[in-house]
């Protein structure tokens, strides 16, 4: 069971939700699951002009009870073939790990992730095959679409 929700955390998440909803940005979205303010479902569209254009990914966002002092845990629910995402959906992104700061919020995280999709960092890969192919974007796109078709469209 999750610990009782701290009022301050709830308030912070509530206001983040409100600003996210009002910003209404294209291609990123997230909403709490009906039973728990600490668990959100996110939706991410690949940015136009990148190989991920037209692909949609679902995310699971899990906020710690001392949010925002600790980073939320974010994983891809839709299988994502990407140099910095492993086969269980774990993401390698500095601002979610050592570079986390309390000034980040859901909106900035989602925007960072959207950027990460189109601008990978093959130097610290979680998915070696994807990292190797990264420089050959045409071939990368072919493999990516095949992977997306096989795993994500279910």
């Amino acid at each position, binding site marked *: 069971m999750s610990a009782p929700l701290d009022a301050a955390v709830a308030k912070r998440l509530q206001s983040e939700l409100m600003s996210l909803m*009002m910003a209404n940005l294209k291609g990123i979205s997230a909403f709490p699951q*009906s039973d728990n303010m600490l668990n959100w479902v996110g939706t991410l569209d690949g940015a136009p002009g990148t190989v991920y254009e037209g692909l949609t990914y679902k995310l699971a966002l899990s906020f710690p009870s001392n949010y925002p002092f600790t980073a939320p845990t974010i994983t891809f629910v839709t299988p994502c073939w990407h140099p910095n995402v492993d086969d269980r959906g774990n993401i390698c992104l500095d601002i979610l790990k050592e570079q986390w700061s309390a000034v980040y919020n859901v909106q900035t995280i989602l925007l960072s992730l959207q950027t990460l999709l189109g601008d990978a960092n093959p130097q610290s890969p979680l998915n070696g095959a994807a990292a190797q192919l990264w420089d050959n974007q045409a071939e990368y796109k072919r493999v990516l679409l095949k992977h997306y078709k096989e795993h994500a469209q*279910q």
Partner: protein
Amino acid sequence: MYACSPFNTLSEDDIQRIVQQIKARPNPAGAPWAGLSVEKAIDSLATEYRGELQQLCTAKRIGDSAASDVFHGFLQFLQSLNGVFCSYSEGASRICGAEQRIIGDMAWNALIYQVLDTRVLAWMEEWLYVSLSCVLHCVVRQPSTIAHLNSAVDSGIVARLQQVHRDTGAVVVGFGNSAIAQSLVSENDTESDDTLDDSDPAQSERRKLFARIASDPRQIGMFVNDFASGCRLLVTLRIVAYASRTLSNAVDRLVDANVQKQANRWDTPCLDLLLTRVRLVATTLDALLCGPATAQPFFLGHAEARLYAKFSELRVSELFGIIIDYPDSRQAIADLRACVVKLRTMRQMAHSLRNAIQQRLLHPGATTSDILTQYISAIRCLRLLDPSSTVLEIVARPIRSYLRSREDTVSCIVQDMVSEESELFEDLASGHGVIMDNGAEGVVYDEDYADKSWEPLPIEAKNVYLTAQRRDADVLSLLVSIYETKDVFVQEFERHLAQRLLACTDYSAEREIRQVEMMKLRFGDRTLEKCEVMLKDVADSKRTDQHVSETSQEKHWDMPLHALIVSRQFWSSMPKEQFAVPHEMADMRNKYAGTYESLKPARKLEWRDALGSVTLRIELADRTVSVSAKPAQAAVLFAFQETPVTTLAELAQKMECSEEFVLSRVRFWQTRGVVRETDANAFEVVEAEGSSGNDVASRASRPAAGLGNAVASGAGSDQGEDYDDDDEGDASGGAAGASNARTEALRVHFNFVEGILRNFGPLPLDRILSMLGMFMPGENTTAEELRSFLALMAREDKLEMAGGLYKLK
């Protein structure tokens, strides 16, 4: 000796000649042994013979023949060679002591090892494959083959087979040869039974040979002996151990060929037949190649495993088709179940079927009713295949979510449900209990502890969302549970019922009454109250109509009009049409309405022309046409009756409606050849077919209402509430009137609704409402407000609604 064998290419003479050739070499049993070390001597001997054998292999005679024939000759040659070799070896051991005997054996082994190159192994595989095919061919056609086999095999094949059958728990009816032979023959596969395909000319040649052998018991006996002696040679020459891989390859090929023949034969049980055949072949081989009955059977286990794997592979790949063919394919399902239970591949099967369904069924080319039919068959098939419903759960999930995204799913299900010949109708009539909304889905009810047949969920059920109700539910309730609420079905049924009742012109609704009763059994009495009112309206209308026609007779009115009087509140939306009714029709209506109002004071009839129908007899100069038309179409024709040549603008003016409205009605008569267009938007009545121009048009036409049978609808205006609850536009209009500011505030909500729908997919109203309530501070929108707001958004093309679920455009 091998006169009747298929393997008679190498004659006795040939072999003798080659053996003589070898024997004519200087005899090494003499002096040479003394100088050389024995290993070296035998080694050089082996090398020499290898050259001889190589020569033999490349000899033209052998090179030309089929591989299996070559191998048989080759075996005989090896046998002779072995004799020569033994004499050498014996000579050596006489000179150098008993241990040289062992070295001699080793040298023979080395020789065999060298000789068995890929080409010889390929011959061997072919030989065994063809021989086994022939054995099977003969056994299936000639029960006496078993007796031949039995006598050819030392330890007795029948006894071995019986042991195998006892071990595997199969029931053997009798223990004689004929009982075993019978178990190998299936009634309806004698005509096409052959392990070889016809495409290859060499194969069809071989088939003829098989047929010749099988036709004569004497030849079978010779062939079986021949085969058995070949196998024994393999043992004597110590080839078996080196070539076990090749031998089992041949068995695999035989199994594969036999399995492949059962492709698409879903109406007969295949597995048992295949098993008995494969067991016969494998046991024969075990007996011939692996020694006494006590020895560990090698080929039996191997062949059975291969059979199960291949057969289940075949049937799993065919499963999509098997489901389509259900219930004709019951036997195939039983076979597949046996395989899958044995191999524990339930989950793989489920995923392969799911992929097949996604590729072949869930695409825009398939109609919703096809998908539903396939889903229903899949439910029935997979229940047989896997009583725990785990496979069904895995397979059904994409189908269910796909169906949910199709707009006509509900109407397809309802159509199917009420058509009396469908399977769903049986479910509906089964009285299986009232279907509940699955609000409580996710709660797994405790199993019934008294249930003796309870079985724990299989391991495959792990991670598969499964509830007890769904596991035991019948097909209808499974279909209903595609949606979160059964209301959508009830609403669709109401629409369907309204359509049927409005289409019926003689007030007879027995069928509909039965349907409603049936629906009540499964959906509960209270949910069908609207339908009850609709049926009652029909019955009341019948009485009223009777009263009107009696009154008309008293007053000598001509009354071809019959009305269906409905309570507007309880019927689905009724389209309105606005136009001036011709005075003949208006007169009739006024009389009808007058009589009704005298019967039911303080009520008023409001006619709905879009729903009526008029039967017209049109008398023209050269012909009479009978047409059933809509009131508006009839009205247009009445207008022509007054002015046979007219323009669109005049017609529109006369009927007090728009030109577009009139035009589509005029087109109706144009297609029936009653009216034609003389100029742009100018029309005239076609009095005589084939004539053109205005010369005939001068004669006045006389279209006449023969029997005007208008079904109109009206609402009791005394009932106060005058809004149409099926049209959300009206409701939202009311809300907007009450509070414009509120709607504007709701507009802010749309971002939230968008966020919810984007992340959670299509949802029903109450889920959206509860999520808004939970995550929007100070939120107190009511369901009605939200509904009208969402309807507004739908009109602005931001949302769409299908089957009770809202989704983003």
